[in-house]
Every structure is written in C-alpha cells, then in structure tokens.
C-alpha cells in the first residue's frame, strides 16, 4: 500500500504514485470532502490522457466531481472493483480505492507536483 508520503499531489486533489506504471487516485482529504461516493466513471484502457484534462468522474451524495489527469500518458489498467463498490474510494483511497494506472508519456511531469508536506500546507491554506 502506498503511503501518503510516497505519492505526489495536484491542486485538484488527485494523487499519482510515480513509476513506469503510475497509479492515480484521489487524496484522502478529497474523499473526505466529497462525502460518500456513490458512482465512479473511469477512462478506458488504452485511452491517452492529457495532463490537467478531465478523465474520470466521481459522484458523491453532494455532487459530481471531474477528476483531472495528474500527468499525461496511456491508461494501462482501471480499478473495476471501485466502480462496482464506490465505497472503497472512501474507505481506502490510496490502496483499494485507486482509480487507474497509466504509462506516463513524460515521466518528468510528476516531479512538478506537490509532495506530502506541500500538499498538507496547500490544504491548510485552502481552508482559509
């Protein structure tokens, strides 16, 4: 299981666990803010994603939220378990509730994202 410190974060609250096959999901903070997730729509395997463009939808009892690709790349796997049981996203956003994996087309992109300390600070700032 990825630790919060190992992943990189976007300002739109997605995380990416960098690697040859990078794992993408939403942060624990994001799932908490959304509330109970009731529906998840994921991209298709083979789909080419562009950084910061909408690529998935997460719907909670409060609203529907676009998920933006944290880095560019081609989708290699999607988490079918989370579409069948959206509660996984609330229970375990970093482990069982990951959304999809992709092969980054520009591996350097993840370096520009926030690390754990910067993200915590970002969330704290946004609360004010």
């Amino acid at each position, binding site marked *: 299981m990825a630790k919060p410190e190992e992943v990189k974060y976007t300002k739109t609250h997605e995380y990416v666990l960098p690697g040859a096959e990078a794992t993408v999901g939403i942060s624990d903070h994001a799932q908490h803010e959304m509330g*109970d997730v*009731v*529906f998840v729509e994921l991209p298709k395997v083979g789909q080419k994603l562009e950084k910061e463009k909408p690529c998935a939808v997460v719907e909670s009892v*409060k*609203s529907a939220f676009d998920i933006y690709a944290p880095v560019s790349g081609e989708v290699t796997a999607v988490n079918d378990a989370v579409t069948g049981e959206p509660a996984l996203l609330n229970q375990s956003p970093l482990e069982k509730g990951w959304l999809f994996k992709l092969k980054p087309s520009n591996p350097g992109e993840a370096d520009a994202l926030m690390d754990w300390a910067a993200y915590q600070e970002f969330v704290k700032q946004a609360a004010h």
Partner: protein
Amino acid sequence: MTCSAKLDNRLSIEKSDAGRRGLFCKNPLRARAKVPANLRRKAAPRLPELAEFDVVRHYTRLSRMNFSVDTHFYPLGSCTMKYNPRFNEEAAALEGFAALHPLAHDSCSQGTLELIHDLGARLTELCGLDAITLQPAAGAHSEFTGLLLAKAYFEDKGQKERTEIIVPDSAHGTNPATASMMGFNTVNIASKPDGRLDVEELKKRLGPKTAVLMLTVPNTLGIFESNIEAIAKAVHDAGALLYMDGANLNALIGMVKPGDLGVDMMHLNFHKTFSTPHGGGGPGAGAIVCRRHLAPFLPVPTVRKEGGRYVSDFGDKRTIGKVKAFFGNTGVLVKAYAYMLAHSARELGEIAECAILNANYVAAKLKDLYPSYSKEYCMHECVLTPGPDLAAKGIKTLDVAKGLLDRGFHAPTVYFPLIVHEAIMIEPTETESKETLDEFVAAMRDIHAEGSANPQALKDAPVTQPVKRLDEVQAARQPNLRW
C-alpha cells in the same frame, strides 16, 4: 410541525379492486365497435380500478405530504421560490389564450401573438438588449439555445476554431453541462477568495479558441461581479461572447440592465424571476435575450409587427431552427406577462430591493451562529455555514437542513456552491414577510441550541415527517428503480 398525512407506500394500482369504477360506460360494446379491429388491444390495459372517491383521497393525501410554496417558506437558494400570484393563473386560463389551437392561422391568433410580441419587447427593454426568443422550455434549455446561437454566430464568421467555453467554479452545474452537450470544451476558472471571478486569470485563459464566457450575475455566492465591465472588455477584446446566466436576475430586475454591463446574451427563467410555477407546477418557459448581431440566428418563428397586425416571422437561412414546437409554452408566457403588467417599472425595481433586503436580514440575524461565507453584504441570497460550535459537535449542514423540516420549513439549498465548505444557501425572495423571516431565524437558532445540547437529536431529524432520515448513500449506490 407534524405532517398529519401518514405515509402509505401503496401506489394507486396496488389499491385497485377488480370491477370498481368511477365512470360506467353505458354500452361498452358499441363504443368498442367504433374502433377498427386492427387498432384494438388484445388484452385490457392494466389500469387501477378505483372509485372516484378513492382517487380523490389518494391524491389529496399525497399532496398533503408535500412541501410547497403554497404551504411552507421555501428558502431554496438559487431557485427563487417566490409566491405564484393566482392572478397569473386566471390570465392563463382565459379562453382566448387557453383554447387557441397551436396551428391556428396568424389572423386567428392576434391576441396571443400580440402578447408574445409585447412580452418580448418589455423583456428586451428590461435586459437592455435587442432581440429575444421565448421558445425555450426552461432555463437550461435556454442556455443550450444560447450556445447554439454562439456556435452559429462563429460559424457564420468563419471562426470554427472557437471551441472553448469558460466557466467559473462557482457556476451552476448546468453551464458546464450545456457546454459539454454542445461539444464545446469547458475551461474552469477558480474564483478569488472574495468569491468573484479572477479577471487576471480570465485574461490568461481567453484566446482565439474561446467562444463564450458563461457568467452568473450576481454569482452563486450571492455576490455581484463588480468587475463585470472589465470582464466584458477582456472577453470582447478576445473576440468572444459574454453570456450571462440570468438565474439570479431577481437581484437585478428593474435596477440594472445587463446589456449596459456588456452582456451579449442572457437567459431568463420565468419560474424564478417572473413568478410562474416551478417544475411540478406545470411546464416551464425560458428566454434568450441577445444583442443585434446574434438576432439573425434566433429560433423561429418570432413575432413581427406589420402595420397594425402581428405576424409569425420565419427569419432567413441563418436561424438555428426550432428548439421547441410553435412559440414554446405560451401558457407560461401569459403568466409571466400578467406578472409584468401587475408591476410598474418602479415596482419591478422594488422586487430586487426587497429580495436583497430579505437575504441580508436573514444573514444579519444569524451571523453570530451561522457565519456568512462573504464578509460583504450579499445580494438576493446568502451563503451560510454551520459555524464552529455546531462543527465541534459533529453537526453537518445536512443535519441543519433536516432539522428545518421538523420546524415547518423547506430545507435551503445545501452543499452548493461547491467552493464553500458545508454551504447553506438561503434565498428568501421578496415575497416573504418579516414575520416569516423571524420565524425562520428562530427555527435556525433553535436548531443551533438543539445541536449544541443534544447533537444526536438533530442527527435523527426529521421525526415529524411521513418518513424519517433517508439513507441517501444506499439509495444512490444501490438504487431500486423497479416498482
């Protein structure tokens, strides 16, 4: 306040008793013989068999379980749940309007055509714009029509590369939804901490690909976009169009003409600003009001005055065509027209003044317990939060909303706008009296007291309604859509 009608889950068909009737056909076989054999059903339709009295009781009981504008204060933010004057209904029921066949020739429809023409003229004047269509069936349909106009306009100018619609993050969800339905790409802009559109960020995002900025004025935080002239200039400098979401026009009506602010087109929701019934109360109606350069693309027919007569105008090839049959939902237009005629120009301005005063009154009376998102005076609606005391007790906005049901009020809009954490969005409208607002304030303060002393009691609300707290999560995750 306890609802006296009890929940009975049975549908009318479950109460059906074979052979029971409200009306008896004296000679069913003779009636049947008149229907050609090939058009007759093989088996009887499965309809509820009930006496007239059973049906009356069934629906009357259901209606008594309902919250409505006619029974309760309904402070649903962004929805403008104002009173629907009965005078409107009388006007719409006049035989000349109600019995007109939609295919009747112009010469037989002069009254309705005159009404459409005059209503259109008054609304374009009110908006400070040049042309109008009254064909759309409601607000979101109007938005769709507006973007169809924009698309046709840019195609006519040979600018097919304009494929982006800019939408602030405080927008109504219908704005990005409309853009997506039209095949445009949505560009989202974060609001500034004061809730307004970030003009510098807007300038960075505007470019040769921008078609339209969709801006709600005042925005969904109930704040006036005071930079709108600079916004309009930036949009026009980029060759794009400024679309105003007119859902919140109740805050501006009669006081500001959006056209004077630089708006190119906007929509109107008659069920909001112009006091026609919402959704379940009948069909809706909307309008797109626009500048002269967009007029040739408007849906047809429109109404033109020729000499002393009114005629249907089918435009030329540039029109986007029809978005709804005939002239739209004309019965609703009659109600909106009646409402406009019932107010002088000065009184239309007073609608906005009273709506703004009422929203600020509620915000001021509650600010010690439910802090406002904005530090400024609001416009026609205020966005509150449960505040630190209730948050410390684990009380959420949803609990406050459910607590209001037990106290005889419809819940406000909650968790919108999305950019406000635990938002409670209250729009009293101008039609509520100070006494009603005071009762509402007292209920909100009572909820605060209950939530502080006995949070579990509030978490269990509602307890006086036909159903207790529903499991929204279960309902959404595993919806049971079959009866």
